[in-house]
């Protein structure tokens, strides 16, 4: 069965890009435009993994991370952001992985695979 990945990012173009690439990599995807919507999807759709942007209008990704862990700390969360300095903020250490945004999505895809134990590549 396909693993389901939730993408939370306020940039529509990036959501589209991530969904496209992760689907290509063989995952089922869904996306939320902000943290609040993302939390709803975590509750209602029970994704297998969340890719979370940090800087978003309204609730930011760090807070969203805490709330997701409060609900269910078994869901792996990948923090995906333009701000590499977030790595220094210990509030983000609760995340399972941390990926700096890049037009090369190879790192993101391989991180998601690793966390979902999908070693086989389905190109």
């Amino acid at each position, binding site marked *: 069965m396909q693993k389901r990945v939730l993408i939370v990012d306020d*940039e529509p*173009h*990036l959501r589209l*890009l991530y969904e*496209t*690439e992760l689907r290509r990599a063989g995952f089922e995807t869904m996306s939320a435009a902000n943290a609040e919507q993302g939390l709803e999807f975590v509750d209602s759709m029970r994704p297998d993994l969340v890719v979370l942007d940090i800087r978003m209008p309204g609730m930011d990704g760090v807070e969203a991370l*805490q709330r997701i*862990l409060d609900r269910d*700390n078994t869901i792996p969360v990948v923090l995906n952001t*333009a*701000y*590499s*300095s977030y790595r*220094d903020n*210990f*509030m983000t*250490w*609760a995340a399972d992985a941390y990926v700096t*945004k*890049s*037009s*090369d*999505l190879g790192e993101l895809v391989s991180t998601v695979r690793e966390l979902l134990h999908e070693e086989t590549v389905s190109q």
Partner: protein
Amino acid sequence: MIPSAPETPGELPLWPVIEGSSAPLFVLDEAHRIVLASAGSCRLLAALAHELQGQPLARYLAPEFALADALSAQEGAIARPCELTLCPPRGAPIPVEVVCDHCDGPGGRRLSLVAIHDLTHIKILDQDRLARLGKLSLLNQINEALYGARLTLDQMLEAVLHCVTADQGLRFNRAFLLLVEERAKRLRGEVAIGPSNADEAARIWSDLADQQHDLFALMVRYDRSCKQTDVAVNEIVKQMVVPMGHGDHILVRAMRERQAFRVVASEIDFPGVEDLRRWLGTGAFAVAPLTTRRGAVGVLVADNAISGKEISDLDLEFLQLLANVSANAIENSRLYQELQQRLADLRRAAQRQKEDQKQLLRMERLSIMGETAGVVAHELRNPLVAIGGFARALHRALPEGDANRQYAGIITEEVARLEQIIHDLLDFIRPKKILRKLVPLDELITDTARMYEGQMREHGISLDIACGAEGVRVRVNPSEIQQVLQNLLMNALQAMGSGGRIAVRTRLQPGCVRVEVQDEGPGVPEDVKQKLFTPFFTTKPSGSGLGLAISNQIVKGHGGTLACQAVPGGGALFTFTVPLPRPHPASPEREQ
């Protein structure tokens, strides 16, 4: 028996009484010659009665005419004493008071009675009073001089010494001044004044007598210091060092008891006297403490080593008075000097601050520029991800040989280049992390643990530090390691509540140093242990649940491990390891 005496003594009934009286009395005839001298008179003039008989009494009195005046003026009037000088045939003149009276003698002879009163004792008292008055006025002058002149501390000390030795001052031969050194807790000789031998003394004293200095001019010699002129005594004063802990020492005692001492040559030793005799080279000296209301500032030592003159009660008394006046002046001068120093410090600090502020402004401008660049770079990153990401998708989707595939490839490459620029820029802007350095771990651990000792004590908890990796240096970020230890100590403290013991230990192990923090709290249950290092996990009502997570991250970052184990009999033992630096003599790690 007495040639010019009345023939029958019985005619004057009081004759034998006068003769035997121990009071100095004379009976004179009309020519004021001595008819009878009492035993007291003979004693006073140191002469035998028959030597005196027939001599005019005026011969023994000065001024000579005064007696005649006294005798004539008092004819019939109330006897009025007059002060004269009695000049015995042998011996020193004696100040006396003379009272005359007249009576009719046998055969109608007119006789005079003269009573003499020895004033020597009273005169001495008067001189003493005068001397006191003189010295008091001197002290007043000294006081005004010390406070009036803007003297540096050194000048002040020398001025005081001049007062002790000057002819117009207390007239000691030599004076030595010792000051308390608060930090070194000792009394140390500072400066001295006085000649080194009798020849030098004679020369100096005659010079001074010629020059007729007034005391103020003598005291305040701005031009030269007695440290340079009086070399010998200043060599002596340099040797005079007494630890304040030596409480029985005469100098320390003088300060503590605020009491001046005089030591005479015959005196039996008591502590410190031998020191002073050795230093001074004389048996007799006086010591006066320099005390103010705030305490002792030092001691004055004075002697008459050259002249050998005895130190009188008065000398000692005035030395103490001078010491009191001087102590306050010295204290003031010291405070003034301190104030000047602080003022200078403040000025320098203000100057530095001004420079710092300029620097800060410059930094702030740079920092704002950097921040702006950072924000711009971040904002550019998102669109670049979209552009580059989709260009990659296009490049992948288009068939080999298609020109558009080539164009998509170009877009991908150019975007990657832009992302690299942004990456470099952001890395440049981000403040560099505090870098690791080689530090002695035991010291770091001990110093850090000590900082929490007070807080532990407030909770009745004792802190045992036992470090067994002495001198071992490790490459760490010291403030991060401090943070780990702090977290562990705070956890232990919170676990224990109050009372008990927290042990901090270090042990050298193969390849690493192991740091242990052991408490006597309730310990850590097995289920909690699993989640101990998970962020936001906490069993405490307060606290972020991040302390151990952060500590774990830090220890991992240093290549070590953080662990928790139960202690048999209760309590928890947290340990972390710090690897030893790899020995790489060929390529030593640079300290950045």
